[in-house]
């Protein structure tokens, strides 16, 4: 897979609270011979607040980014963030309707293209890089590391829009990590919600939902939870103490991005994978797994 160039939309949190996701994704992609070309002058997709306010506004905010991708001469863009992905896909799908496209374009300076497709970097790893290539790059398998994969809501939902993996029992991350020589425990709450954007306005709700996930992970004696979503990661990791306080628990559960573990298995440096940016210290867990 040499010299593949893909358009890459990091998403706002990639420049802030999930900097390590952005960093580790780029690091692993580069290691596998993929150049992630950042979308020029991208802007926020509007996330869930935008579509909670208006579907046309939401499509326009993402539509602007699709237009940016088109202007780079690309017709495929990848993003690590499921929420961004959901909005980009929604916009790309919505503008196929002439009526909606007219409304969206009336908000935009440049027309929203109808031929740009968005996929997640997770899907890109699975379908375009391929498990074989990933497996070949693994130098440091971690057979004693027991993890659960937590996908959250939006990676595969709604299935008609996302067209990726099984909406009830997704296996893409499981398969990638098993390929990386990591033990993946079947996780029944794979697609339950972590509380999403309610961390700030209704912390009571998100704490309870994130708590369920952490409880189940620790009951299954997982060493860590692996995620593919910045919002899930934030709720489970940065807010883990809030969860502990609200639920009366004492979790110290590391929450990795799957790209970080991919990188570790490929022998890439912790620094380039942003491990130090995780709120719950992953070192004890990694030490147990024999990662230095």
């Amino acid at each position: 897979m040499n010299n593949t160039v893909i358009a890459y939309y990091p998403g706002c949190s990639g420049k802030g609270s999930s900097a390590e996701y952005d960093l580790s994704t780029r690091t692993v992609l580069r290691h596998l011979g993929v150049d992630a070309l950042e979308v020029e002058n991208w802007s926020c997709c509007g996330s869930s607040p935008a579509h909670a306010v208006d579907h046309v506004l939401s499509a326009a905010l993402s539509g602007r980014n699709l237009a940016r991708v088109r202007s780079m001469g690309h017709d495929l863009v990848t993003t690590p963030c499921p929420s961004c992905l959901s909005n980009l896909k929604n916009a790309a799908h919505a503008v196929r309707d002439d009526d909606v496209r007219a409304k969206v374009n009336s908000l935009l300076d440049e027309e929203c293209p109808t031929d740009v497709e968005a996929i997640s970097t997770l899907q890109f790893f699975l379908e375009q890089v391929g498990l074989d290539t990933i497996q070949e790059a693994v130098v440091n398998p971690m057979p004693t590391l027991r993890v659960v994969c937590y996908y959250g809501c939006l990676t595969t939902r709604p299935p008609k829009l996302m067209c990726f993996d099984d909406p009830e029992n997704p296996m893409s991350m499981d398969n990638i990590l098993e390929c990386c020589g990591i033990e993946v425990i079947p996780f029944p709450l794979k697609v339950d919600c972590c509380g999403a954007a309610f961390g700030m306005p209704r912390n009571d709700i998100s704490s309870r939902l994130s708590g369920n996930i952490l409880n189940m992970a620790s009951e299954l004696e997982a060493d860590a939870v692996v995620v593919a979503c910045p919002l899930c990661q934030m709720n489970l990791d940065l807010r883990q103490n809030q969860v502990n306080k609200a639920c009366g628990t004492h979790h110290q559960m590391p929450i990795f991005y799957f790209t970080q573990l991919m990188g570790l298995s490929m022998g890439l440096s912790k620094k380039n994978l942003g491990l130090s940016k995780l709120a719950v210290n992953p070192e004890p867990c990694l030490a147990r797994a024999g990662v230095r």
Partner: protein
Amino acid sequence: MHIGVFVCHCGSNISGTVDCPQTAKAAGEFPDVVYSTDEMYTCSEPGQESIIRAIKEHNLDGVVVASCSPRMHEATFRRTVERAGLNPYMFEMANIREHVSWVGRDKALNTRKAIDLIGMAVAKLRNGTPLFSERFNVTRKLMVIGGGVAGIQAALDAADSGIEVVLVERETTIGGKMAKLDKTFPTIDCSSCVLGPKMVEVAQHPKITLYAASEVDNVSGYVGNFTVQVRKRAVYVDWDACTGCGLCTEKCPSRKTPDPFNELIATTTAINIPFPQAIPKKATINPDYCLQLTKGKCGVCAKVCPVGCIDFEQQDKIEEVQVGAIVVATGYDLFDYSVYKQYGAGKLPDVITSLQYERLLNASGPTGGHVLRPSDGAEPKHVVFIQCVGSRDKSKGRAYCSSFCCMYTAKQAILTKSHLPDSQSYVFYMDIRSPGKGYDEFTRRTQELYGAQYIRGRVSSIHQHGSSLVVRGADTLAGMQVEIKADLVVLAVGIEPSRNSQKLAATLHISADTDGFFMEGHPKLKPVETNTAGVFLAGCCQGPRDIPTSVSMGSAAAAKAMVLFSNEQLESDPQVATVNATRCVGCYKCVKTCPFGAILESEDRWKNPKAEVLPTICKGCGICSVTCPHGAIQLNHFTDNQLLAEVNAICPLPTI
């Protein structure tokens, strides 16, 4: 010609939106129409009498009735005009109910349309000719396809009336799904006690020939004279010799063979007899698991068999059977519920189907009738039943109700309580459908006497949590989410037509509805007939049915066959193709397109090539008529001129 037109009011069904008197008056203006009138109910006894009277009084030689669909009453009125001495094919119908009064709202437009349709019928009739049937012999032998309870009933009823019956069963034993059940609702009587004697009767009946482990490969011919090719699958045992002693099954070393009779919750031996009451009670080798057949070494069964009936070289055998009628009773299969990923997709051991649960409840099942859950063999305490899994679910392509799940779920809840007095059952349902004698009382009893808790709502997901299953559902009556920690979950999985039924439909030239169930001849009046003469339906192959209804259908189908066989000879439908030999140039284009091989490459007296139609084989499709450029082959009653007359009646030939 002297044509009479009779316009039916059909109560207010037609006259509500069509001006019948005006229609009749206008019909009187059509050429050759000498009499026209309107009647309240043309199909009623007085209605028919007035047609007969009119034929005699006005010397009619053709009749048009404008009423309902010809698919409804064409046969009725043909008999009526025949009673008055007319040829039954000098009769036409104008469909002014289904195609006019019931679909159009504007009375003036409807009336005009009704008049037009009568004009078309009159035009067609003016180009019609009397047709005469041929008589042919009937093979008084019935084939029943499928040996479940419906097929067994049909076979026994027909055989008891003296008809030879051939019963073809795909599995190695008859009995169907009912043989797997423990008890039946709403009487809680033992399923095998009811069915067992009937199975034995089949085996012993002198008029019944049973072909088990057999399938229908091909069917040709027509009502009264079908030729059926039956494939007898290789079972690697000479059944004529096998005594069913079971010695081979005791010694067979391949003990991990999946057991379909036990719905795959248990294993059996590679050579096996599905269950002790099997009919025929003969051993069968599963070639995928037999060590001799897969690896070429073992042969223990052959060594121990006291009569030497093991035959590893046995091949499939095709036998040809001549029958006069066929009853299809191929039953159902369970919907593949693994598409419900949120219910574990078949991967959670303690989430099982209702039919698997029957085997756990059944004393002859793998647990000897003790309810022990598959994962750890423990007795469950909290048992959750989920209804409508693969029923009434459009998103899974199953919009229909499987009809009997509500009742067997109630039965299973009762049986759970009697097997495990300390247990508690929960039933998630959307609606309780219990419209039968004693049925609703039964579901009430399930709750009132046996304490099953009914929760109105669907289940969103099931996941494993430790050794229990967390069932997350809703109680819409309370308007709350509910969660149950269950030890065992039983899915009332919906039913679908049994596998390969699509292929069988094509073989038999019968049609299937959008869900794949075979189509009955008429939803009300011909529930066990099909649109192919001589082929009848019984049981779940026609739609979800419970046992009593399946049995009734079996009897009804047998009765239909008896009616057919009560005639020494049958009359052929004269609506077949005929060749005008003077026009035929012998290119045989028609021969090439006939799907039934009903046209022969023949010759006339002067050895000129001519096509010839075999009227008993011709099914009257008319494909041939269109292939012939000179119109030498015409389909009776649907001739070019009859159809052109209809066209010209609506759109008259233009003049300059």
